[in-house]
């Protein structure tokens, strides 16, 4: 049986992997003499992170807010809708195809339409992120609810539990780890959703990493664009890590300790 890696080793490898990639990238750009407008070297990107830090930070605060609030909204509303669909076959039949259909619409197409309906400003962008992140949360939570051991519910029935009690004591706790897993999946697309929402909802004075990437492209400051993308990537890793931690704290039973007695 394979032994799990020590946490310190896991973290070290998690840092080593990207470092090796950066080293290879740096070597390629320098040795192949690649135009920095096309592909800046990691050192150029690092320089931009320092030189443009004020600009990048202000843009990150806006985008970060859109992502976190949008994700939180998606988690609450997505889990809520999944519960409703689980309890009502009629709601499930009516809304199921709609939920799947919305997910199939490409973000660059959906974002401008939503901006047209919801207007400009940070609020509508949060709504756009929430709508786009909704699907993985709904599907994961609904799937978990459907897979709850039916014998648990039947046992509670013998104890005289009402439908509401079975939901509170069995189905909701059973579905919690899956809902958080859905949110982890949504993190990856949340950043993309926020960027496209900013593209679509740009107006005078707007801020955000999406707009910064766009303006950096037009002014051929590719290193700044890459710096913004790097920040988005690091933010996604940190947010996923935070959700994983929340899973371990809120649903410890879903993470069996190796070597626990049977």
């Amino acid at each position: 049986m394979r032994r799990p890696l020590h946490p310190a080793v896991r973290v070290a490898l998690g840092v080593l992997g990207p470092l090796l990639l950066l080293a290879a990238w740096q070597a390629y750009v320098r040795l192949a003499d690649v135009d920095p407008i096309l592909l800046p070297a990691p050192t150029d990107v690092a320089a931009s992170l320092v030189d443009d830090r004020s600009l990048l930070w202000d843009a990150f605060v806006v985008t970060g807010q859109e992502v976190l609030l949008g994700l939180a909204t998606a988690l609450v509303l997505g889990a809520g809708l999944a519960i409703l669909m689980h309890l009502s076959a009629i709601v499930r039949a009516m809304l199921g195809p709609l939920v799947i259909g919305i997910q199939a619409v490409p973000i660059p197409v959906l974002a401008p339409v939503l901006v047209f309906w919801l207007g400009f400003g940070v609020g509508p962008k949060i709504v756009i992120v929430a709508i786009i992140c909704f699907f993985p949360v709904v599907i994961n939570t609904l799937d978990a609810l459907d897979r709850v051991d039916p014998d648990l519910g039947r046992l509670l029935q013998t104890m005289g539990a009402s439908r509401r009690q079975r939901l509170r004591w069995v189905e909701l706790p059973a579905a919690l780890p899956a809902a958080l897993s859905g949110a982890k999946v949504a993190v990856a697309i949340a950043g993309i959703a926020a960027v496209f929402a900013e593209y679509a909802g740009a107006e005078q004075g707007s801020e955000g990493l999406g707009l910064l990437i766009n303006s950096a492209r037009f002014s051929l400051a590719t290193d700044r664009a890459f710096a913004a993308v790097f920040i988005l990537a690091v933010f996604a890793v940190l947010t996923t890590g935070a959700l994983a931690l929340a899973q371990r704290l809120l649903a410890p039973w879903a993470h069996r300790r190796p070597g626990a007695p049977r």
Partner: protein
Amino acid sequence: MRVQSPPSGPAAARPLTARGIVRRFGDLAVLDGVDLDVAPHETVALVGPSGCGKSTLLEMVCGLQAPDAGTLDAAPAALMPQRDLLLPWLDARDNVALPLRLAGSGRREARAAADALLDRVELGRFARSRPDELSGGMRQRVSFLRALATERELLCLDEPFGALDAITREELRHWLAERLEERPRSVLLVTHDVEEAALLGDRVIVLGPRPAGVVARISVDAGPARRREATDPAVVDARRRIHDALRTAMRGDEVAAT
């Protein structure tokens, strides 16, 4: 021919009285006219071949299914299922306290009652352990304490030790017998283990193959279950009679009531 001996003793105040129970699933007849009684503080073991409807009968007693015909008069029952079915997100204490919480008890009150039950059987130090941190035997004990916590007179045990190894099974049989002697209840025990039926039951009801009816009613006069051993002559005799009843039922012959 199946034996349908009239039940003995007064019908009043019996936790369970079943007459002419019939149950079908579509075209499949599972139970065909089963009569069954459990007297106060009596343990009745139900044995029969696989698929004869033992668990179906138990589910009807617990209110999870209704018979297609016949009458079933059962006191509210506490179920100890074949799998422990402890809720993974609750520790041992909260699992034991669950029926009390469902009945409306406050958290503190229910936990205090659960702690008392766990302490009485020396499981108090595992009160804050989650099910995945307990052994199979400990989980079954916690599951049984959860059934006891309801204070319901009738206990339904569905092959409670089926998933355990032989040594743990024997240990838990003694443990269960001690608990029932401490606080007597009426018990309907479903088991495929003939020896278990003879070791724990005051009476053994033998069901035949589908569509099942009662083929034998066997009294086990072997003293208190807590002191029975597999080698006791009365237990050995009861085991033999149960085996004989099952064999002849599988052959479809007449069996006399004993």
